[in-house]
């Protein structure tokens, strides 16, 4: 296989997988009736967005950011032959993963409170907004 063909296959795989994850997650949030299943769909959307961000910052044949042999040797010219991938989306995604965990934990705590009050997790049977 040639280099360009492999590059195109990789791009299609990463972007296609992330977009498919986002779309499947949004479908689940909109159509499912169970509260825990809705939160599972929300984590799937979260994963898709994270993969989309990291794959947008990827450079073909790049190395991991900051800590690369070119930087260690102090030669800036070497960076043109061996570039490093973009570190900004990686830092953003690192934060977004932890925030996603916090959002999921708060949602699950609300689900437990609703279950103790209404004795169900089906959103069709929870009609009143009163606690």
């Amino acid at each position: 296989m040639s280099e360009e063909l492999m590059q195109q296959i990789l791009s299609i795989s990463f972007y296609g997988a992330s977009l498919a994850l986002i779309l499947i997650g949004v479908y689940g949030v909109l159509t499912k009736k169970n509260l825990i299943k809705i939160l599972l769909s929300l984590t799937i959307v979260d994963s898709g967005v994270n993969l989309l961000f990291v794959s947008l910052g990827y450079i073909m044949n790049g190395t991991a950011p900051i800590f690369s042999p070119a930087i260690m040797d102090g030669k800036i010219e070497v960076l043109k032959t061996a570039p490093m991938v973009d570190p900004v989306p990686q830092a953003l995604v690192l934060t977004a993963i932890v925030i996603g965990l916090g959002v999921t934990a708060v949602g699950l705590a609300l689900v437990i409170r609703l279950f103790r009050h209404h004795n169900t997790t089906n959103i069709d049977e929870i009609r009143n907004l009163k606690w």
Partner: protein
Amino acid sequence: MSVLTVLIVVLGAIFLVVGAWYVLTRKDLLVATIASSIISLILSVFFLILQAPDVALTEATVGVALTTIIFVVTIRNTKRMEE
């Protein structure tokens, strides 16, 4: 960038989409939670291929362990089956 990497990425993408659909269609919420943690595992391999080892480590611990633990605790406090 070798042929093996391309093969792993294509197979992983297919498994990701099938796994997400599996999570949505299961009636047993415990099975859906375990499938969601397997999605996170494949995703952390993807991050490693994308030259983001720090994100891969965080996704492996948070996505596979912590999210699964809090979902299992919630399912234990509520109903296991989706009716």
